[in-house]
């Protein structure tokens, strides 16, 4: 940090002003407001509010709907992370072995990253719609009663597939980069020792990839938590019933439709704590990686 070679106070603050203004007005103020509202209770007419301490939190945490949404979030995020990372790792291992055409495959596999989550949802809806979708119809003809608008488990499966499909590209790029940094001589030595490909993968490649995998796990969880609102909103609207309602979705529904400010704010604060925890984990990990 020795590169501080210009003097003066007015100019640097002027340079920082736009960023700080946006940060204060649209980040810190609303976050502060959320914390403030989370300890208040408004009367039904919104005319008076009283300080209630942590009561909103206590109420939220025991609410069966909130617990349901938390469970949905857990199932959804873990499934998306496992599916998106598993298939990306598999494809990256193949691309690393293929040698020729590696870059062509890269181009052909990374573009889904650019598709908006809501648009990804619409694409998969065309396939899994019970009456106009190719796969939806095939399932019904095969005797499986497929209708994601009626069956909660099927709705969850569909939003998981749509959300994971889009995220594979991202994981693929990082896994491929990780694989390409493993010295080929290490793998050849193992091959000469007679280790079969599967064994080579689990005993050599996988441990060497663990920093990349851990980093991607955090990124994928953050993605599944926060960036997939569009998938759920466009595809199922949180339904059927509340089968695909995640924590973010619930904050949206409560705040926009039911206008219960205290409870919605308390839920926002809980989500902030989750993001802060995930970000902290991510940065601790990066610090460690720098020291290697």
């Amino acid at each position, binding site marked *: 940090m020795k*590169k*501080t*070679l*210009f003097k003066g106070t007015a*100019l*640097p*603050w002027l*340079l920082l002003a*736009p*960023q*700080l203004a*946006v*940060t*204060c007005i*649209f*980040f*810190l*103020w*609303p*976050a502060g407001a959320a914390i403030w509202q989370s300890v208040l209770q408004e009367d039904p007419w919104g005319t008076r509010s009283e300080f209630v301490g942590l009561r909103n939190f206590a109420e939220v945490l025991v609410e069966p709907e909130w617990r349901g949404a938390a469970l949905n979030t857990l199932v959804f995020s873990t499934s998306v992370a496992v599916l998106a990372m598993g298939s990306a790792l598999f494809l990256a291992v*193949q691309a690393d*072995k293929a040698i020729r055409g590696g870059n062509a495959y890269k*181009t052909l596999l*990374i*573009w889904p*990253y*650019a*598709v*908006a989550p*809501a*648009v990804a949802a*619409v*694409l998969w*809806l*065309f*396939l899994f*719609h019970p*009456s106009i979708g190719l796969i939806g119809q095939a399932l019904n003809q095969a005797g499986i009663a497929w209708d994601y*608008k009626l069956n909660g488990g099927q709705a969850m499966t569909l939003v998981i597939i749509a959300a994971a*499909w889009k995220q594979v590209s*991202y994981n693929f790029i*990082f896994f491929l980069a990780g694989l390409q940094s493993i010295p080929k001589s290490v793998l050849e030595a193992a*091959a000469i020792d007679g280790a079969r*490909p599967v064994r080579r993968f689990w005993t050599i490649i996988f441990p060497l990839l663990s920093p990349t995998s851990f*980093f991607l796990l955090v990124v994928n969880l953050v993605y599944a938590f*926060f960036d997939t*609102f*569009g998938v759920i*909103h466009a595809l199922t609207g949180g339904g059927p019933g509340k089968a695909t309602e995640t924590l973010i979705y619930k*904050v*949206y529904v409560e*705040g*926009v439709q039911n206008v219960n*400010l205290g409870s919605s*704010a308390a839920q*926002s604060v809980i*989500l*902030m704590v989750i*993001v*802060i925890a995930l970000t902290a984990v991510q940065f601790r990990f990066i610090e460690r990686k720098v020291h290697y």
Partner: protein
Amino acid sequence: MDDDALAAATRRRQARERIMSHGWLILGVLIFAFPVWITLVGSTHDASTIGRGDVPLLPGPHAIENYTAAWTSGGEGRYRASPASLMLWNSALMALCIAAGKITISLLSAYAVVFFQFRGRMLAFWTIFLTLMLPVEVRIIPTYQVIVSLDLFNSMAGLTIPLIASATATLLFRQFFLTIPDEYVEAAKMDGAGPVRFFRDILLPLSVTNIAALFVILFIYGWNQYLWPLLVVNDRGLETIVVGLAKMIGNGDAQNEWNVIMAMAVLALLPPVAVVVLMQRWFIKGLTETEK
């Protein structure tokens, strides 16, 4: 003799593994492209073909009328969106404002933090850093309230300004600025160049690659926004194509004008996908460097 046989066996095994790899990769590419292919094909048939449930696998003759309908009227069904021509314009404007805004204010603040010595420098840095922990999704309602009280509801400013604060972009530029040798600044000073000229004539030209890489990522980020536009805009004249597309789905009835919806989906995903494919090199650079 034995060695030769062993070497030949190894070569055969490697060739076999490689063919397997290509097979898996081609399968992966096909699975990834399949939903888009079905959408592309669907957008070239008429509504009754798709509504009947005859899912075509090859293109039909109705492409021009479907895309014209999407482009000029946004469909005619119960759930209409604005015309695609308008929504594409809105999406492009929003994405460009967000990308350009984020890059500009992050460049300026990174410059201030790295090259100046002034009181409150670390405070400013950590304030910016904090935004990383507060994604818009967790402070939906209070941020919405701020927008309403600032009279920015239903405006392009309200759509873009709250999203342009960027800790990641600032961190990236800071990281890059720290690698610039001090001699550059000393030489500039000797030539009598002040901080403004140093920034314009030396720093900006050196940052071009980083700006390009970041631009690709941020353009996609902006284009794919869903929750925020859904919340702060209800004026049809400001509707973006990702939100408009999801609106056309309604409850996902079989009677929807699926052919026009599919054409709209193709229009919604084409621009960001084109950006990623055409600017692949910068895209990968941007992706791997913003996550450090």
